[in-house]
């Protein structure tokens, strides 16, 4: 190694160290996704609207056919939410939360279809349960936010 090469290495090495340190960050979970948060808030609102609507009806009018379009609308939103979560890297935990929510909603829809009504007790209880589910998912997504000063621009899923 000649003198010129040694000198170049001496100058470059500290910069290389700094650059490699700067790019070395720990990634345990998916990046925060504003669009997911918005989807969660939207579907939470739609589910709540369905339960409020049902609670305004007398028990004999709470038929499945009177509410089928709301179920379908929420199904579509939940599937869109799931698809977005499937596309995000390191996102298994959020995806699992969404899958459980979808399976509970499907169970409710089937039960409503079978019984063609829903009791006051179950209505009140299931509404509370969905509030808990969406709150847990929203809090989980919000926990992924990183302080503005440490945030790096990301285009991941920007246009999805």
């Amino acid at each position, binding site marked *: 190694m000649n003198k010129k090469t040694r000198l170049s290495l001496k100058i470059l090495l*500290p*910069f290389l160290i700094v650059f490699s*340190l700067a790019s070395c960050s720990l990634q345990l*979970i998916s990046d925060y996704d504003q669009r997911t948060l918005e989807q969660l808030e939207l579907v939470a609102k739609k589910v709540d609207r369905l339960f409020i609507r049902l609670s305004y009806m007398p028990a004999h009018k709470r038929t499945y056919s009177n509410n089928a379009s709301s179920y379908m609308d929420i199904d579509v939103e939940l599937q869109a939410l799931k698809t977005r979560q499937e596309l995000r890297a390191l996102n298994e935990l959020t995806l699992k939360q969404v899958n459980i929510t979808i399976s*509970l909603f499907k169970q409710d829809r089937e039960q409503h279809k079978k019984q063609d009504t829903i009791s006051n007790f179950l209505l009140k209880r299931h509404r509370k349960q969905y509030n808990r589910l969406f709150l*847990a998912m929203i*809090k989980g*997504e919000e926990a992924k936010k990183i302080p503005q000063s440490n945030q790096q621009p990301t285009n991941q899923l920007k246009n999805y």
Partner: protein
Amino acid sequence: MSIDIANLFKNMASTAGSDLQEDGDNISGNLLKVLDNNKESIAELVEARANGDINQEDFDSELAREKSILEVEMLGLEIASKAAIQKAVNAAIGTLTSAVSAAL
């Protein structure tokens, strides 16, 4: 280039520690809330069964639902814990990077 390694590691630990403490307090507060909600919900269910508001089939199905809901809530806490560790470690790496840059 001169770096006080002992001091640097102390600063890294302190940065990571203060980040973790703040998030850790939030997570334990949320865990208590989750367990409280679960307790309240199961108590309500047992009372409804005792009063005859629901039959055994609904009771069993509601117990299974409660388990799923608790799982979603716990997953939320797991996400928050991972996020807290990630933030703390990255803050410590940030401290190290700044110290090395300053020393150059």
